[in-house]
């Protein structure tokens, strides 16, 4: 059996006295869509932040794509091939869609800076290739026509797609999505569902999906992990998790006590 793409062991995040993520272990094999659910404040976003290197965290191990990430800063982890979106869309408002998505290609443009700035032959190869990749990914997401619009002129759904475009344009191995369906219409959620499947099946991407729209997570995920109060309380197939009494309790409150 292959080693998992992401192997996190005992990841722990403390904010003062609060343990927001408490010894969570998660192993995701390649080409899997993993759902990560839990009630508000369960620690899902904080777990994302720990994996991406944005918050100081403890842990026994954090391996990604065969490399140890535990002590790497966020930008090196991103460069290694993990990309994410944010619970509230984070784009550069003054930028056009083109520029925003090109930010996702930052590490993918290997041009020699001097050759690129001075316009020497071949100095722009990476930049031009990146621009092609942006156009391609926008077409793939069905928002090709927004290329040169400023992002603050777009609809909310379009902005979400631009953020996803930025995350996937460099073809990362791991894509982490923090509530991508929040604020989308049912029609848009359907499109998102189809999109994530294509990313897994056609692009070979591994996806970690935090989502409150349970119908989406349970339908699309290969496996689901459930957090509550920073702890992992269940993991399994969508059907197993949906039937788990501990999960029901976490979601409905402690009615049995």
């Amino acid at each position, binding site marked *: 059996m292959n080693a998992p793409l992401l192997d996190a062991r005992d990841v722990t995040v403390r904010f003062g006295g609060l343990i927001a993520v408490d010894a969570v272990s998660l192993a995701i094999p390649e080409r899997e869509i993993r759902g990560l659910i839990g009630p508000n404040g369960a620690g899902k976003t904080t777990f994302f932040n720990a994996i991406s*290197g944005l918050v100081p965290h403890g842990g026994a191990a954090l391996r990604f794509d065969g490399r140890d990430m535990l002590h790497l*800063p966020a930008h090196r982890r991103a460069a290694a091939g993990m990309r994410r979106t944010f619970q509230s869309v984070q784009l550069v408002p003054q930028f056009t869609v083109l520029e925003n998505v090109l930010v996702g*290609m930052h590490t993918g443009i290997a041009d020699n800076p001097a050759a690129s700035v001075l*316009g020497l032959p071949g100095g722009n190869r990476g930049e031009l290739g990146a621009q092609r990749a942006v156009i391609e990914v926008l077409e793939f997401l069905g928002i090709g026509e927004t290329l040169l619009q400023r992002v603050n002129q777009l609809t909310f759904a379009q902005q979400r797609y631009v953020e996803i475009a930025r995350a996937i344009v460099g073809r990362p191995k791991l894509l982490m999505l923090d509530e991508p369906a929040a604020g989308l219409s049912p029609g848009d959620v359907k499109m998102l569902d189809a999109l994530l499947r294509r990313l897994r099946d056609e692009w070979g991407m591994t996806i970690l999906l935090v989502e409150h729209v349970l119908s989406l997570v349970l339908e699309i995920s290969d496996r689901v992990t459930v957090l509550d109060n920073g702890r992992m309380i269940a993991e399994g197939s969508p059907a197993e998790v949906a039937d788990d009494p501990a999960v029901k309790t976490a979601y409905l409150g402690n009615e049995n006590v």
Partner: protein
Amino acid sequence: MERLPWLRRGFAPVLCVLLVLLAQVADSYTQYIVNLALIYVVIGVGLNFLLGYAGQFAFAHAALMGIGAYTTALLTSRLYWSFWLCLPLSGVVAAALGALGALPAMRMKRVYLALVTLAFAQLVVWVLVNWNVVTLGTDGVDVPAPMLFGWRVKGDTSVFYVVLPCTALMYWLAKRILESRIGRAFVTIRENEIVARCNGINVARTKTVVFALSAFYAGIGGSLYALTLGFIVPDAFGLSQLVLHFSIVVLGGLLSLSGAAIGAVVLTALPELLRDLQALQEIIYGLVLMVVILVMPQGIAGLLKRWGVLPREVLARNWRALARETP
């Protein structure tokens, strides 16, 4: 949206030709003002990297310009080094010192960066005034006229032929840098460091680059300034110089390359046009700035872009070709 595309394509070369024609007829004083304006284009573009694009509130630009000016003035007048060596060297010396500004920018809140760089600026002027043995203190330094292929660069018209190509080159370089992934990284760290980090941008390195780059422009500008004035004193690089730099960038337009150039020209020409109204000059100057900040936060360039006179600035090389391809 773009009403005058022909204006864009031909603009820079036509402007250069016009300036050269002007140099044939201009009196020495007019030529001197044109030279100053060109130098402030370099200065303004340099500060806009830092303040506009990367959003770093640092106040060392005037001091770094002074360091560039003194590097050139002292090495040419006291050690007889060639001006042509001192010009790039002034940029490099300023860049090396300016890069240090990235240190406080990495670990401190904005207000501390402002205070630390302001203190640095004061310190530089203090050293220039008090380290008499080297800097000649408040007596100032004479800058000898450089030689170029046996031709002596003396007088405002000769200086113009040095300044114009330098400014054109620096402007072109700035455009190339901004339209690459480096330029986009500047704006991304200004807007959202978390997004930058999660997309593989090394924030510390990017800050070091932008502080050094901005200072390099200040140093080159300072060197050309020393050449143009022929005589410099420490006081020239104090607070009023700094205010002028900030005014250029804010009036012209933050986040706009042409804006910095427009700001430089307007703010060099304006005081001269108002010379007959000596008493009112400062008031008018202040009023203009206030109105700009309140009414047009994007500066003159923002306004001209809205009217379709100035083209959009997109930080991606080749974007116009893409625009034609994708309807």
